[in-house]
């Protein structure tokens, strides 16, 4: 076979494969739609925010408490993880000399690699009993947020680290030549210059937090309610799917697909915001 013919054949294969890969997305969207359509058709979209509560056996499917729980756990987790993550990046970039900085970097990479179900296990056996001593039942919004914070911290730390590393070193030298202290450089130059990247990292971390299922399911109690305090048990959208998918049928099952669609929409919106602010996806 001549080289040109070989290339033509290669291209056909590649196009086929790429088509298949993209078809996966269309397939997912189609199936989510198809599976959730019956319940949307019967109750209308408004039902999912206005119904009396989440009582699948009584035919009421209000997603608001779950949406609120997802938002609350993720927001709290972000609030906890952002300063810690940024601080870790600053430390390994500006404070730690050589080996210590690299060590911290590896700790964070390792932390990023810990499966969420292991974090859930640890949360349920260590964090939840601690919270239980303060205010029962222990499985709570707070526990969920703490575990989520631990989970997304590496994302924030690594994106910030990458952003700081990409700053031209002339910045630092120039600032040092002006007699600025290390702290002044961090506050006045490094952070402002990497603001956009840090923000993008936070958005990506939020998307991860919202999409996380098992760790949250294991530690947050799964009661469908609008949380009034940190110690209230909550059920997130993801946990709702995981918890009820096992046995849901009919409209109940369809309403879980609606939650899936809602969740995907929110996560994609966050990812789009991250992309727009120039974030690079760090697969960690």
């Amino acid at each position, binding site marked *: 076979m001549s*080289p*040109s013919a*070989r*290339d033509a054949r*290669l*291209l056909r*294969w*590649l*196009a*086929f*494969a*790429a088509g*298949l*890969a*993209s078809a*996966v997305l*269309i*397939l*997912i969207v189609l*199936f*989510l739609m198809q*599976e959730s359509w019956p319940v949307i058709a019967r109750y209308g979209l408004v039902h999912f925010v206005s119904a009396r509560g989440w009582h699948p056996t009584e035919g009421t499917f209000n997603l608001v408490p779950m949406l609120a729980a997802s938002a609350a756990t993720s927001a709290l987790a972000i609030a906890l993880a952002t300063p*810690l993550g940024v*601080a*870790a990046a*600053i*430390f390994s970039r500006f404070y730690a000399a050589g080996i210590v900085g690299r060590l911290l970097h590896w700790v*964070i990479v390792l*932390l990023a*690699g*810990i*499966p*969420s*179900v*292991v974090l859930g*296990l*640890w949360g349920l*056996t*260590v964090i939840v009993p601690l919270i239980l001593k303060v205010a029962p039942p222990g499985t709570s919004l707070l526990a969920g947020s703490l575990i989520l914070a*631990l989970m997304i*911290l590496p994302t924030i730390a690594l994106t910030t680290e990458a952003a700081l590393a990409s700053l031209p070193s002339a910045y630092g030298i120039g600032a040092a030549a002006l007699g600025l202290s290390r*702290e002044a450089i*961090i506050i006045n130059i490094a952070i402002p210059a990497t603001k956009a990247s840090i923000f993008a990292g936070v958005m990506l971390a939020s998307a991860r937090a*919202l*999409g*996380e*299922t*098992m760790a949250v399911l*294991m530690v947050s109690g799964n009661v469908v309610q609008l949380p009034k305090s940190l110690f209230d048990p909550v059920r997130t959208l*993801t946990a709702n*799917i*995981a918890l009820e*998918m*096992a046995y849901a049928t009919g409209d109940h099952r369809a309403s879980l*697909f609606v939650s*899936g669609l809602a*969740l995907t929409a929110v*996560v*994609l919106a966050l990812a789009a915001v991250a992309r727009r602010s120039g974030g690079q996806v760090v*697969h960690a």
Partner: protein
Amino acid sequence: MHSLAVYRSAHRIALRDRTLQLLVLAAVVVITSTFGWLLLDIVWHGANRIGWEFLTAAPRSAGRNGGIAPILLATVLILTVALAVSAPLGLATAILLSEFSRPGGRAGYWIGLSLDILAGVPSIVFGLFGNAFFCVWLGLGFSILSGGLTLACMVLPILIRTAESGLRTVPNDWRLGAAALGISKASALVNVLIPAAAPALVAGLMLGIGRAMAETAALIFTSGYVDRMPASLLDSGRAISVHIYDLTMNVAGGDRSAYASALVLIALLILINGAASWLAERTLKRRITAS
């Protein structure tokens, strides 16, 4: 007066610097100590349960006793299915994106966009999809095949994006050189470009394996719960992460086994990552010195 003002502002600056330093240090201490706590806890509770028997025996009384052999096998099978499908598909798509699609071209744009969307879909939604499509619609039931295919869909964007960026970092000189010699794109890929991008490809693959191995939510409703030795790909098989979840949530007195399984899982993940960087380094070295 003047010197006093200067002194005061200098003092304030010193205070600010001190505070920042302290805050950063405190944050690092919090992170490392939490991490140390987590890791020590897992090792402490898990290590004494691990032994040859744990790795080679079947679980008894819902996993409280016995081992995790069928679970390890199921995990490996699920991963194999996932990679056997996603790796060639991912590599092919990456090649199309990096070698054949023009920057700003329509096909490249749409494929890229759908990949980015796919990367953002939460894993539980993949679980929903896998259940509806593979288990019910295709009639594969709760099986290793369903779970593996669901994971394949999930890791596809990671594989494609890492492979694509790996291929893009290969110097253009070689592409032009090959083209100028009348070498087909196919041969250039096989002989030069893919070997040159191998470290990145391997790294991406390992990233995908790591992600797939840690996955729970997408597997519960696709590959199922059965903790017995799988006899075929159409049997249900319990992945190790699902096993940890089950032991933690559903088995009173299962914590020790859960910790031991978690330790095994983490060790496997570290092993895979280590192997990946070793392999990447080796191919890189071999490329420069010999062959």
